[in-house]
């Protein structure tokens, strides 16, 4: 029961418990914001009488991830509200934030349990290790120990195991307390998989601590004096944990970013312009609907009974989002316009099919361009971060918690699948060319028959698969470092 052990346990417990309470409260707030938002958009959609009004009203929300308490990752940073619409393919860049957030509060850095372990446990591991060999050498006890017929490898191994056990105590006690706190909360429903994921996080934490202990041991084996070992360990800690991640990301920022945006954006815009020409051609050949006024169909093809028209569009070159679509709403169509109705119906059927196929074509351009502009630089940064154990640890815990890029992308691919399902449903039921698309006089839209959106976090095996490379790397570095220490130690003069 040395002082450093007591201090280690105390400070880890204090930080973890205090932050668990704060993080839990934050999670509960986000969850309730999610629930309100989901309910609101549900009601909002049901107020609409015609199908075409589902645009920007059929909104799906991303639930907060309960494991974000352990590693926040991108869970809070990325938008959590996205519209499902046939005129664009939803991506993470189109998502917006719902709820009562004050965006300025993001000025303060956020914290999670992985961050505490990352900072404190690595420091403790080094403090435990710096005098393991150098200290014994200074006091002369090392010589004494080695006079016994014990192999040097055993000594090293025994030291390693005992120190790891000591370091496990603060890790496990603090995690236990935080899990107890979390399970008492009624807002989170944990299942067996979540506990397995937490188990994965513990495993990674263990490897991470062990790595720092070995770094400390390595320094200790190489130096003669404890004060030098201590100084070197502390600088190593400062560099690996504090300086390197920030330095490398700043350096990556200096590298010019790829600029494929404008050409891809122009391509997408051209596709939409082509669609516009197609539309006008379709209408021009039609004697009753055409020729058109300024805005095409905006006043309902002179259909008597039109109430209002609307235009949905987006033009965001930075995220390569471009679309526009107009339509109109008719409450009750007058009898004299009745012969026009089938024509308008067939026009919408044609036009919406064209939109869907245009969007599919733009997606072929947009997806790789977004990947090049946003994902590749981010991945480069992440890759370089992994040269520090901190980066490896962060990536692996994120993968277990499901708050990494892939975990977030899972949600958006689920949204894309849902969009596909909605369009298929519209095709199946011939909704695009139905009267209910624009008029509410003969039956209104039936929103309950629409497919439901559901999102399940990825399977634990997928989490494990994503965390595996980092876990393996950490393990390998551990083994290599241990071998190096062993070699240094057996060759060193006592």
């Amino acid at each position, binding site marked *: 029961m040395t*002082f*450093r052990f007591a*201090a280690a346990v105390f*400070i880890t417990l204090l*930080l973890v418990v*205090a*932050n668990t309470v*704060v*993080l839990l*409260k*934050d999670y509960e*707030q986000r969850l309730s914001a999610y629930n309100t938002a989901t309910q*609101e958009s549900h009601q909002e959609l049901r107020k609409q009488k015609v199908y075409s009004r589902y645009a920007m009203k059929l909104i799906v929300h991303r639930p907060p991830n309960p494991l974000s308490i352990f590693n926040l990752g991108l869970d809070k940073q*990325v938008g959590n509200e996205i519209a499902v619409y046939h005129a664009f393919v939803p991506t*993470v860049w189109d998502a917006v934030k719902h709820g*009562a*957030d*004050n*965006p*300025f*509060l*993001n*000025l*303060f*850095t956020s*914290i999670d349990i992985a961050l*505490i372990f990352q*900072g*404190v446990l690595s*420091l403790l591991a080094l*403090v435990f290790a710096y*005098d393991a060999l150098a200290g014994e050498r200074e006091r002369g006890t090392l010589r004494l120990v080695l006079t016994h017929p014990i192999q040097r490898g055993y000594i090293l191994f025994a030291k390693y195991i005992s120190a790891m056990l000591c370091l496990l105590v603060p890790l496990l006690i603090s995690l236990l307390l935080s899990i107890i706190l979390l399970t008492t909360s009624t807002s989170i429903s944990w299942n067996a998989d979540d506990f397995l994921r937490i188990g994965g996080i513990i495993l990674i934490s263990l490897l991470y601590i062990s790595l720092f202990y070995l770094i400390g041991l390595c320094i200790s084996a190489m130096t003669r004096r404890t*004060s*030098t070992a*201590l*100084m*070197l360990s*502390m*600088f190593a800690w*400062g560099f690996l944990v*504090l*300086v390197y*991640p*920030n*330095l490398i*990301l*700043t*350096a990556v*920022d*200096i590298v010019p970013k790829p600029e494929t945006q404008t050409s891809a954006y122009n391509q997408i815009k051209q596709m939409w312009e082509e669609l516009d020409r197609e539309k006008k051609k379709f209408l021009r050949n039609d004697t009753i609907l055409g020729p058109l006024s300024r805005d095409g169909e905006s006043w309902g093809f002179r259909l008597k009974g039109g109430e209002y028209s609307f235009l949905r569009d987006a033009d965001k070159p*930075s*995220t390569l989002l471009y679309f526009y679509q107009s339509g109109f709403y008719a409450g009750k169509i007058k009898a004299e316009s009745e012969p026009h109705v089938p024509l308008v119906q067939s026009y919408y059927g044609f036009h919406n099919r064209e939109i869907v196929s245009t969007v599919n074509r733009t997606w072929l351009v947009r997806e790789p361009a977004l990947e090049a502009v*946003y994902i590749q*630089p*981010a991945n480069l*940064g*992440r890759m370089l*971060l992994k040269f520090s154990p901190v980066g490896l640890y*962060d990536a692996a815990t994120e993968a277990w918690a499901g708050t990494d*890029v892939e975990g977030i992308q899972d949600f958006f691919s689920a949204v894309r699948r849902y969009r596909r399902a909605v369009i298929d449903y519209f095709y199946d039921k011939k909704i695009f060319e139905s009267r209910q698309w624009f008029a509410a006089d003969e039956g209104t839209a039936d929103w309950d028959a629409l497919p439901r959106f559901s999102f399940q976090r990825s399977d634990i095996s997928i989490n494990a698969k994503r965390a595996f490379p980092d876990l393996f790397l950490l393990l390998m570095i551990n083994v290599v470092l241990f071998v190096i220490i062993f070699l240094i130690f057996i060759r060193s003069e006592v």
Partner: protein
Amino acid sequence: MWHITKREIYDNLNSLRFALTTVLLLALMGTNAVKHLREHPKRVQRYQDAVTESLNRLTTRADDSLYKLAQYGPGNFYKKPSPLHFCANGGETILPDTVEVNEPPVFATDSDNNVLLKGIWSLSYPDANLQNKDIGPNVSQVDWAFIIGYVLSLIAVLFTFDAFSGERERGTLRLMLANSIPRHTVLIGKFLGALLSISIPFILAVLVNLLLISTANTVHLTTEAWGRLGIIFFLALLYTSLFLALGLLVSTRVQRSAVSLMILLLTWVTFVVFMPSTCASIASSFSPAMSFDEFWQQRNPIREDLWDKYEQWLWSSKLDDTTLRAKSDFYTENAKREERRHEERLKYRTSQVHRARAITSLSPATLLQHLIEAFAGTGFERHLQFAGNVQRYARQLRGFVADTDRGDSESLHVIGVREGMSQKPVNSKAVPRFEDTLSLSKDFNTAAMELLLLVLFVVVLLSGAYLAFVRVEV
């Protein structure tokens, strides 16, 4: 005393920590300078393009007529990028860099989309920098605030943890105190020695950084900027002294240097790394902000209220004084209320951030961060100053429009209504221009409280170290 200081410096100069510190600081400051040199010209270019465009709008409107100017107002306003951006990033990815000028609202159109009633411009404050859709890893940038706040403070701790406990372990403390030197001289000597030996690598790194930045012809630092840099440098020394004092305090009370380091490091981690974020999380969960929907819903009662009051005149096409004045009142009142609604939202959010900042001020690292932001002209307070500048300019421009209109004898002097205003073009040179200025005295005012707190921290810790050392048994 000078003897002790000198001896300390010589000791440190030869040590491993001194070499490592120099390398570390040079690498950090070098990266910082290179990054600034690459990014600042782009930032300035973006700002200038935006300002030119916004100025063009103003001139075309002024050239058209005074009425157009009164109706559409100026173009959007942009925050001038600070030349000292490398000192503190100040959350530029989160804070918006514009204040927008809303297009005049259309209250009614006829069936051919012709506008019947159109209001006048108002200001609105966008939420955040919407350009930022990054999904990259979230780490703070290497700016001076980071280098001083995190790295330099850690180094300060590493330079002092063994100041007394190390000497006690080696037995030299007893030897030194056997001489007839007063204890406080020893303490001050040690303190100055450590401060100077940290200053050497720090000054070296700062010089390299500033040399890189000032010799490049893409970035210009004015005299005022150099003054501000001087203040920031002084702040860095003050902040370092705080951690030196803490190190000395712990070192006097603890027998062994390993224990002393352990205590210091844990204190450092808690106060510098964790306290800011934990405190901010606690503070931000006190009161949730108003949601966007609520904010929009507030608009309807305002409009209805105004419609009820002015409706009898709005549809009339008569050109008599009462009708025109009623229309003008309706437009201005609507714009004013709209603007107030936006301002109140900003104020509410500001008060939330201020509360969080007050609580996080318990950590000296955040204090320093705020101080450097204040003097580098970035960050949250700067954003508020910018918003204030815009509001002042908006008042000035409205005053100018009213004054110019009064000068036209053909006009009926009813602002915001076509028939009631001067239709003559305005000399665009005479229209006041928006200038986003920074004033050092204002920055001092906003930073005074935090500066005082930091000084207080240092004084308390130093006197603590003094008392502890005077009473300690050797």
